[in-house]
């Protein structure tokens, strides 16, 4: 640092404000100029509340979607069971009739018993 810079440093030395500066600042704070109330949208509680609500909404949505999926699977399984029972019943009746040799199979049952594979495909089995 040369002479010029030294002189600059001396010239720009820190200066103290007038006596009682800190007291004047504190007086302004006490008057209410200091601690300005935070606007409601910047309250940390609101931020946490929003995050919690979003998280809850996501959980509820996920659960709702899971329940719907389960219902869909259950409906499909129920349909498949019903078709399987109908096919099994028809076959049983057909076999019973053949064993007894009493009467020819009924028309409707004959239709079912005639092509069980087709109905399996329709039911998704």
């Amino acid at each position, binding site marked *: 640092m040369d002479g010029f810079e030294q002189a600059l*440093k001396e*010239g*720009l030395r*820190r200066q103290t*404000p007038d006596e009682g500066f*800190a007291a004047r*600042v504190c007086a302004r704070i006490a008057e209410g100029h200091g601690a300005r109330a935070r606007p409601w949208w910047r309250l940390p509680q609101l931020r946490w509340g929003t995050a919690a609500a979003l998280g809850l909404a996501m959980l509820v949505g996920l659960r709702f979607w899971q329940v719907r999926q389960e219902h869909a699977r259950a409906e499909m399984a129920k349909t498949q069971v019903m078709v399987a029972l109908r096919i099994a019943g028809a076959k049983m009746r057909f076999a019973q009739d053949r064993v007894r040799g009493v009467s020819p199979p009924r028309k409707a049952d004959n239709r079912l018993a005639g092509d069980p594979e087709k109905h399996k495909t329709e039911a998704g089995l």
Partner: protein
Amino acid sequence: MVRANPVVAATDLGDFAALVREHQAMVFSLAYHFLRERAAAEELAQDVFLQLHRCLDRLESPAHVVFWLRRVTAHRCIDAARRRGRRPEVPLEEVPEASEPAAVGDPLLRERLRKLVGSLPEQARLIVLLRFQEDLEPAEIARVLKLRVNTVKSQLQRALTALRQKAGSLEW
């Protein structure tokens, strides 16, 4: 064990007054050397400390407080200078030259140098103040003013050259 943040603890007015006393010279001097007016500097310094009181909970350490104070003071100085547009800067050429050589410790010389610094453009003035009043390195000045280090260095060099040229007749 949770340690109390010493900065946040100063939200109590007594502690805060101590914090103000600790840093008042730095803030006031930056404002005074920048604005060249005691009343305006005092008002600006008060506003800076009021803002500090509002932001204390976000400051993590005493060093952070010092950094924050320098940055906020610098920004407020520029804002104040722009608001006071009715008082344009004195161009370096209009600052009267010394009629006779002066010594380094001469109060007249110091006053003249302060006037010369006050005639610099806003950013260059802040850089010179942070360098010679606060004794900061260019890298630290760059952080405070959010500038690139090379920008700070070049502005500092240009400002010093201009100041030297104008103060050329003075003896060092």
